[in-house]
Structures are given as C-alpha cells and as structure tokens.
C-alpha cells in the first residue's frame, strides 16, 4: 500500500484547507521527510492519520481538535459553522482509495460544540479512473483490513508518546491479516468446516439440497442434525467465553504475581522478623537460665578464691616463725596427762600442781600430738594450699557466665533493633497474605475454566461423531438420483477442500511466528550493536532477551532507546516478511492478500544514539515500500547523510503563530 497524499483542514494548527501533502511514491526514493521545530505541529500531523483512519487522536484534550483561530471566529459569530477534515488518498492492491473524515462544529451557548457525529466516506476508483464506488459505510471492515488498527502503533509510530504497547496487545490477528492468513480463514468460513450442515456455508447448502423419498425420515435426520449443530454452536460460543475467562483470570493473576514479586522483599523481611522474634525468645530463655546459674557459680566454694591473696602472706609469716617441734618421739599428750594424774614422773620425781615440774610437763604437752603445733601448722598450710588451688576456676566460671549474659543481652538488643526496623519497613504491607490468597483463588478459577475447556472439547468431539453418524444415515437414506450423486460428489470435494484449507492455515500460522521471529532478529542484529535477541510470543508480542549472562547487567535499564530499536526491528521484520510473501505469492501466481504498509514515524531518532540512527536509517527505507519521517532538523542531520539518496520529497512545517502552521515543500 502506498499513501499518495494527505490533506488537512482546520485540524489543530493546520488552519483552513491546506494544500495536499503529496508523498513520494517512487520505488527507490521512497522516503518523504517533514521537518519541523518543537510545537510546530509534527505530532499533530501524525495524529491526523490516526484520526482519519480510526476516528481517534491521542491528544490530552481529544475533543479539542478544531483550530483555535477558527474556534474564536465561531465564538465571535464571524462564521456560523466550521469543519475539520482530513483526507487521505492511497493505493491498495492497485486500487485508488480516498478516505475522508469530517466533523462539523458550531457555537453552542458560550462554547463551541461538535455538530452531529464524525462523517466518514471511503471511495474506491477503478484502475482506469473512470468509476468510483462508495464503499463505506457498506464495508465497515475495509480500513481495518488494509490498515489494521492494532498495528497502527507501529506504522504510525510516535516515539515521544510511545508506551510499550508491543508487550501488551494481542497482535496475532493483525499480524496474520497483514501476512495474508485471513484469506484462509475467509475461505473456510465460506465453505464451512468438514461436515458443516450450517445453511450459511456451501457445504450446508449442499447437504440440505439432497433429495429424499422418505421425507419424514429425512426431516427427522435434519432436525437431529440441527439440534446437534445447535448444541455444538452453544458449546463453541461457551468456549469463546471460557477462553476469554481464562485469559482474563490469567492476566489478573499474573498482575498480582508481579505485585507479589514486588512484595517478595517484604515477604523476606516478614520471615526475617519472625526468625528474629524466635531468636529473641530463645535468647531470653537462655538468659534466664544463665541468671539462675550465676548464684550457683558465686556460691561454689567462694572462699577458695577469696582466700587466695591472703595465702601467700600467711605462708611467708609461717616461714619466718621458728616453731620448734621438740616433743619426745612417740610420746603423746595423753601420756603427760597420765603422769600428772598419778603425781610422779617416770624418773620418780613427784609432780605436784603448780610446781615447776608440773609446768614443765604442761609446756611439753603442747608440743605433742594431738596438740602438736608443728603438725597443726603443717595441716593448716596444706589446707591453704589446697583451697588456693581449688579457687583457680572460680573467677573463670563467674566471668564465663557473666560473659554469656552480656552476649545474650547484646544479641537480644540487636535483634530487637532489627525487629523494630523491620516492623517499620513492613508497615502497610500486611496485605501480602491477602494478595497471596487472591492469587490462589484466581489460579483455582483459571484451573476450573481450563478443565471446563477440556470437557467442552471432549463434548464437541462426541457431538461431532454423533453428527457424522446421523449425517451418514441421512446421506445413505437419500434418493438414488443423478442429482443426488452429483451433490454427494460435491460434498466430498468441498469437505476435502475445507480440510486442505484448514491444514494449510494451521501449518502456515505455525511457520509464520517462527519466520517473523527470524526476520525481526535479523533486523535487530543489524540495527542494534549489542548482544541481544528478540523473541515473539504466541500473541505476536516482542520481548527482549539477552544472549549471554554477561550482558545481564545492562539488560535492566531497558532504555527507551533500546525499546525504539526493538520496535523498529519488529517493524522492519514484519514489513520484510510481508514483502517476501508477496513476491512468493506473485511468483507462484497465487492470489495474494499480502500488501506491505507504509511507515509514518514521528521523532524516530530522538532517543537513540548516532550508531543506531545510522543503522535504522539504512534499514528502514529498504524494508518499507514507503517511509514518511516527521523529525526535527537537528535529529535528522545525521540520518540524512545515510539516507539522502532515498529521499524523494521534503516538507517543512512553517510556524506562523502558536495556532497556525503551514506545510511547505522545500527543495531536496
């Protein structure tokens, strides 16, 4: 498809009916450049395509599309009515189309209001240019089929307002349409699936035109078939709902899982808090035990320890004393007592009380056992020695318990600090558990829906075999006429064709994703100077992947520049694949539904570095049949050096006032 021109009237800055902007349609010089400064209307220009094609524009004030000066004229009563009009002329599959959207405005009270709804006219001109057909509103899907709205984000690419739609939307039907698979779908729809008895399909019509002699029986079969068909239809419809539910539930639970992912850290903290509290509990118990242990340690023969400083002194005193043990060998105190009692010594000397002999004996007695002073001191010293030695462990025991107490106190204090800080962090995240439950609930529901889907598939399978049985009976019971034989042959033939289309469709749609991924990666490698790949999922969404773990660290930033490169690679890959398919179809002399799309890009270079600008500028004019660039002069300088041979037309936005811009063609 080629866009020949666009013409704007009163669309925001573009006041009055502007001359049509003619785009380059040359095969080689296929680039049209529109240059403009900030606020000169670059984005408005891109949005005018969206408005014309789909009746919407991505402005903050969507309704505020009418030129401000014209609006003032309306308010001041200088004019009674005004209109916005955007007209696009394009060539699609060798037909010329004109798409024209209009909206009327008038003054209402103190403001300007829309009059009626938007008016859309689509016309088609025959190749010879003589006949014009009005095709809209007759064919509502015309625009969608040639310019899928789902892909407008790519082909009408607004970098500055880009939201990462590539990872959101289901692009499957749009991509399939663009790459020609819709043709198969339409063919199957027309013929009907195998054994279709639906009267809206070719097969259904044939079945119903079989002639029967036993009309009652035939009617019975027809009713049975209709009933089965109806039942299948109901289940199929239900399946659509079930599939939607699955998607919806899956998306919801995914979103919540992501949220939970955010809470993963919080969950970690919660677990840590629980662990810390258990630690505190355990430490408190140990602390109580240690506190009970302290009196036991303090009371464990404390004298052995406390006597230590005195022992040495006592020893040195005793060492200096002259304690003569002069007692008579083997004599003891009892012997002396006996001598005193009997009144005379062993030598016969009388011993009288208080006599010198008596006192001599008493003195002697003091040196004898058990009162021997020497042995008493000896025993005393031995006891001191032993006590002193036994007291060695006392201080270590007491200190040990105290150290344990200090350590436990310290650990408890630190844990409590941590618990306090964790509690602070966890404030307001009590909902983790609730969220977890919700996810469980959603996942359960999703499982139920998936089970239901499987049961329904089983039921459809059973109903289909019932249907085949009834259909066999119905066919067999048909009259043996020439007409019926012909119909039977046609039925057989159409069933085979339907199967053939179905199989081709399945095969091709499977291949398509693989081919697209390959094609997109080729361009991605060409544009991007780094180690990455893109992957395309079953919904045809593009995801960035790193090739090796070393690059992982750079992956995180996922800059807007990289997103831009990714999207251009997708664009280029898709356009290239479409082009290749088109050529292949033409070569095989097949009816081709493939048509490459023009690319209209706003500020494509604003987030990318020079290297990427060069790469993109080199690639895009080659993959796209038509490239329309809306850029600032300063961003384009570098790109121009690369693509200057490809530029066919150049325009400049000339800002007259804040509310009025003119578009003028300039020399190349």
């Amino acid at each position, binding site marked *: 498809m080629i866009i020949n021109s666009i013409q704007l009237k009163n669309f925001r800055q573009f006041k009055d009916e502007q001359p049509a902007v003619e785009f380059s349609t040359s095969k080689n010089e296929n680039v049209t450049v529109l240059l403009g400064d900030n606020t000169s209307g670059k984005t408005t220009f891109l949005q005018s395509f969206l408005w014309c094609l789909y009746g919407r524009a991505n402005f903050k004030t969507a309704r505020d599309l009418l030129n401000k000066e014209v609006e003032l004229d309306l308010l001041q009563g200088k004019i009674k009515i005004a209109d916005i009009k955007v007209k696009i002329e394009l060539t699609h599959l060798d037909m010329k189309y004109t798409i024209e959207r209009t909206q009327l405005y008038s003054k209402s009270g103190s403001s300007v209001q829309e009059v009626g709804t938007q008016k859309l006219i689509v016309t088609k001109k025959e190749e010879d240019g003589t006949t014009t057909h009005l095709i809209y509103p007759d064919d509502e899907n015309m625009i969608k089929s040639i310019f899928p709205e789902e892909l407008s984000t790519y082909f009408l690419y607004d970098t500055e307002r880009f939201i990462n739609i590539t990872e959101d939307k289901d692009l499957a039907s749009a991509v399939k349409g663009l790459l020609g698979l819709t043709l198969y779908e339409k063919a199957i729809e027309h013929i009907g699936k195998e054994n279709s008895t639906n009267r809206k399909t070719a097969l259904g019509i044939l079945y119903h035109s079989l002639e029967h002699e036993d009309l009652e029986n035939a009617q019975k079969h027809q009713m049975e078939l209709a009933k089965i068909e109806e039942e299948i239809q109901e289940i199929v419809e239900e399946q659509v709902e079930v599939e939607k539910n699955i998607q919806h539930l899956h998306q919801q639970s995914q979103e919540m899982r992501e949220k939970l992912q955010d809470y993963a850290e919080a969950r970690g903290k919660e677990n840590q808090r629980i662990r810390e509290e258990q630690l505190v509990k355990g430490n408190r118990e140990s602390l109580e035990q240690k506190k009970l242990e302290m009196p036991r340690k303090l*009371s464990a023969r404390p004298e052995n320890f*406390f006597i230590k400083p005195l022992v040495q*002194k*006592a020893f040195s005193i005793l060492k*200096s004393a002259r*304690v003569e043990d002069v007692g008579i060998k083997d004599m003891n105190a009892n012997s002396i007592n006996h001598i005193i009692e009997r009144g005379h010594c062993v030598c016969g000397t009388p011993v009288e009380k208080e006599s010198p002999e008596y006192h001599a004996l008493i003195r002697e007695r003091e040196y004898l056992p058990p009162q021997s*002073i020497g042995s008493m001191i000896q025993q005393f010293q031995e*006891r001191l020695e032993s006590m002193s030695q036994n007291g060695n462990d006392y201080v270590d025991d007491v200190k040990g318990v105290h150290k344990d107490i200090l350590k436990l106190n310290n650990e408890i204090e630190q844990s409590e600090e941590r618990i306090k800080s964790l509690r602070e962090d966890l404030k307001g995240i009590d909902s983790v558990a609730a969220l977890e439950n919700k996810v469980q609930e959603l996942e359960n529901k999703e499982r139920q829906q998936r089970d239901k889907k499987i049961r329904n598939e089983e039921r459809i399978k059973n109903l289909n075999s019932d249907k085949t049985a009834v259909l066999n009976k119905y066919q067999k019971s048909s009259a043996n006429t020439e007409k019926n034989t012909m119909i039977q042959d046609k039925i057989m033939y159409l069933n085979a064709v339907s199967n053939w289309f179905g199989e081709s469709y399945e095969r091709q749609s499977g291949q398509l994703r693989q081919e697209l991924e390959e094609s997109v990666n080729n361009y991605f490698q060409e544009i991007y100077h780094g180690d990455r790949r893109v992957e395309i999922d079953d919904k045809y969404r593009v995801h960035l992947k790193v090739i090796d773990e070393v690059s992982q660290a750079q992956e995180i930033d996922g800059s807007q520049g990289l997103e831009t490169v990714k999207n251009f690679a997708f664009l280029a890959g898709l356009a290239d694949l479409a082009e290749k398919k088109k050529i292949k179809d033409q070569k095989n002399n097949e009816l081709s539904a493939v048509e490459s799309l023009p690319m209209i890009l706003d500020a494509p270079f604003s987030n990318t570095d020079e290297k990427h600008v060069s790469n993109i500028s080199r690639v895009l004019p080659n993959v796209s049949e038509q490239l329309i660039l809306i850029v600032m002069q300063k961003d384009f300088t570098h790109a121009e050096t690369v693509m200057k041979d490809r530029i066919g037309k150049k325009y400049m936005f000339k800002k007259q006032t804040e509310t009025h811009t003119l578009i003028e063609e300039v020399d190349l």
Partner: protein
Amino acid sequence: MIFDKLVRIHGEHAHRVESLAGPGKLFNRNIDLFFIAPLIGYLLGKKEDVVITENVDRLNKAISLEQLSANSQLLDTLFQIIILLHYEKQENVDVAIDRAFREPARMDETYDENGLKVFSKTEEHLEDIEIFMSYVRGGITHLYEEIIKNGSNMDDYIRNAAIFVEQYSAYCTEDMSLSQIQHAISNDNPMIQ
C-alpha cells in the same frame, strides 16, 4: 571446732546479709557469705562493730549449728588465717601463731556451783572470735556497697558481682604485696569506683 555456737549477725549487717544471700539472691546461703566476708574484711582492713540503729528492726541472720559443724574444719582454717595475719600485723609472729593455733586449744578450768569442773574458752580466744566477727561485718558491708548499693535489680547485682570478682582476681597475683592488694581493691581506689 572454734564456732561451736550459733553464729548470729545483727542489725544493719543482718539486712545486708539478707540482700546478698538466700533463695533467689546472689549467694545461696548465709554461710557462703560467712566464708568470704572475713577474708574481704581483712584485706580491706575493714573491721566493723554491730550497728543497731533505731530505724532498723532487730533482725538477725543466723548460721545454724548444723552448717557450722559440717564446715568446722574450713571455719577453723579461716579463723586461723585471719587471726594469724591480724596479730602478725598488730604484734609479732609469735603472738600471731600463739593466738591462731594455741589459744583455741587452751581451756579455762572453773568449777560450777555443784563443784564440777567446767572447761571454757579463754578470755583471749573469745576476744579473737570477736575480732574475726568484726572482719566478717566489714566484709559484708563492703560486698553490700560494691554489689547491692549501686544497683536496683538482679541484672545490676549480677553485673556488679562479676565486676567485683574480676577486679578482685586481677589483684590476686603472687607478685603483689598484701598492702598493694589492699590498696588496689579498697574503696579509695578510683579503678574500682
């Protein structure tokens, strides 16, 4: 057996004993305190008389005869070392040995009203027991001041006791003279404050 009668601690000191010893206290039994108090009292040169003020009820803390008897040898040794050191400082070595070892064995012989011979501790020995007890009271006061007075709960008492024991042990080296030790662990030493 020197301590052959119930030992009683009266007045202020009884209250100090009560805060230091007994079930749930730092020392399990009164006698544990009785073992160490004279040693600490002597080391610090702290001898104290019985203090009975009007504010203090007539509490007394006793050590049972049974406990005294079971620990008689230990108590004799403690008595001997305190009296030995005390008299060596006050008088001389001979007196010290005499009062520590001989005096407890001496008996005064008197006769009771029935004319029966009665043996009793000598005046000197009874005096020495009182000296010993005054060191006991001095030691109790010191422990009280170091451990209980500056604290308000068991955690404080445990901490203070551990610090006291550690300080005490730091000065138990053989190289230190007794006077150095006495100075080191006395209340005047800023290191202990």
